[in-house]
């Protein structure tokens, strides 16, 4: 299939029909068919992110279901002028997934009284694994422009659902340092990716 516009393959879909923003706006008006189409566009990313954070397959499915139903329920709150639909949906997904992980962790802590975090692997290994799994080359490249501590802080909090204090414990760095590195890292990432408003 030829693409006369010469746009990347991923974007040609928009030409075939409404993108997530338009669909979400239609969903806000109670359009269930638009929701079904939106589902097809975003569910793989929602599930991918949730699974990455939650790990457990059954729970990931549960959390994804919660997220997607919440997309339906609160679509009326989405304001296209304030940002992309995908950001809106994935932020929601991240929050839910992290909540699930923390609830499970709290339960485990109560049970075992083992303290703050699972022993885990050395963090550089975590980072290597995450980096090598990233599918977007630009994202991978941008992440490599971060300092190691910035990168670890971002990855441990975002993909593992750790609080910045937990991340600091894992990284054996002062919490204040991790807090600022996390911010600096995200800012550098923002600038590298050209994320604007």
């Amino acid at each position, binding site marked *: 299939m030829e693409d006369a516009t010469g746009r990347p393959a991923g974007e040609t879909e928009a030409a075939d029909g409404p993108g997530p923003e338009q669909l979400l706006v239609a969903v806000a008006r*109670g359009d*269930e068919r638009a*929701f*079904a189409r939106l*589902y*097809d566009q975003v*569910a*793989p*990313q929602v*599930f*991918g*992110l949730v*699974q990455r954070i939650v790990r457990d397959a059954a729970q990931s*499915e549960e959390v*994804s*279901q919660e997220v997607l*139903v919440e997309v339906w*329920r*609160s679509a*009326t*709150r*989405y*304001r296209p002028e*304030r*940002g*992309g639909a*995908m*950001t809106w949906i*994935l*932020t929601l997904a*991240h*929050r839910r997934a*992290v909540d699930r992980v*923390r609830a499970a962790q709290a339960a485990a802590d109560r049970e075992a009284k083992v303290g703050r975090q699972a022993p885990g692997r050395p963090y550089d290994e975590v980072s290597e694994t995450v980096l090598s*799994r*990233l*599918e*977007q080359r630009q*994202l991978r490249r941008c992440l490599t422009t971060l300092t190691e501590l910035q990168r670890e802080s*971002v990855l441990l909090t*975002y993909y593992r*659902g*750790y*609080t*910045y204090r937990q*991340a600091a414990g894992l990284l054996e760095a002062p919490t*204040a340092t991790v*807090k*600022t590195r*996390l*911010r*600096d890292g*995200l*800012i550098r*990432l*923002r600038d590298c*990716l050209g*994320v*604007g*408003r």
Partner: protein
Amino acid sequence: MNTDPSTLTGAYAVDAVVGEERAEFERHLASCADCAQEVAELRATAARLGADISVPPPEELKAKVLEQVSRTRQDPPRVTELRARRRPARPRVWTTRLATAAAVVGIALAGVFGGMAWHTQQQLAQVTEQMREAGDAGREMAEVLQAPDAELLRSSMGTGETTAVVSRQTGQAMFLGSDLPSPPPSRVYQLWFIGEGGPVSAGLLEADPGEQTSSVVAPLPPGTQALAVTVEPAGGSAQPTADPVLTLSL
């Protein structure tokens, strides 16, 4: 901790702040438009990390979601159209759930000026939900917060802070006080709308039970130029009997 709370934007954007620290930062966000803007940008950045992984969910998930959707009512949309002018209802004093939502309302206020992270919109949605549950007055308050012409006024009053949001379009005003000094014995704070026709009572600022906050939402009389707070005898007065301890000009 007396570190600069603004540095928490990153951690907040990736949901890595919890508990009281989170609540405290959200209060800070209310008065820091730059922070709210930065949070929005960093959330969009984080979402790029989130969008990286795409995994087809189990086949049956779609049917489950669509089934649940078919029996799930959507949140009502925001109301932005001009309200019909209603009779000047008696001012309502809020003593219920509003107090528990006060911290989050602060975030909502940050959003009044745009640049609100969508996440805080989520919270706004939650607060709106809580307000709706609190009845008619809640709906009105939610409307004020979301009105396109909402004007935010902040000031301190003694040890405490006051925040007012007024919208001429919706004809509503809300006033939120937190950590206000206690009024003298058998005295109360009373809120007034000051206009050409003189002061009109907006209601009493009574501390919500068990909370450090007090709040009032009331119809905004046309021509209101300022909000003022006076100390009045218990039960309030028909007209102010003392000089204002606080004046907020619109």
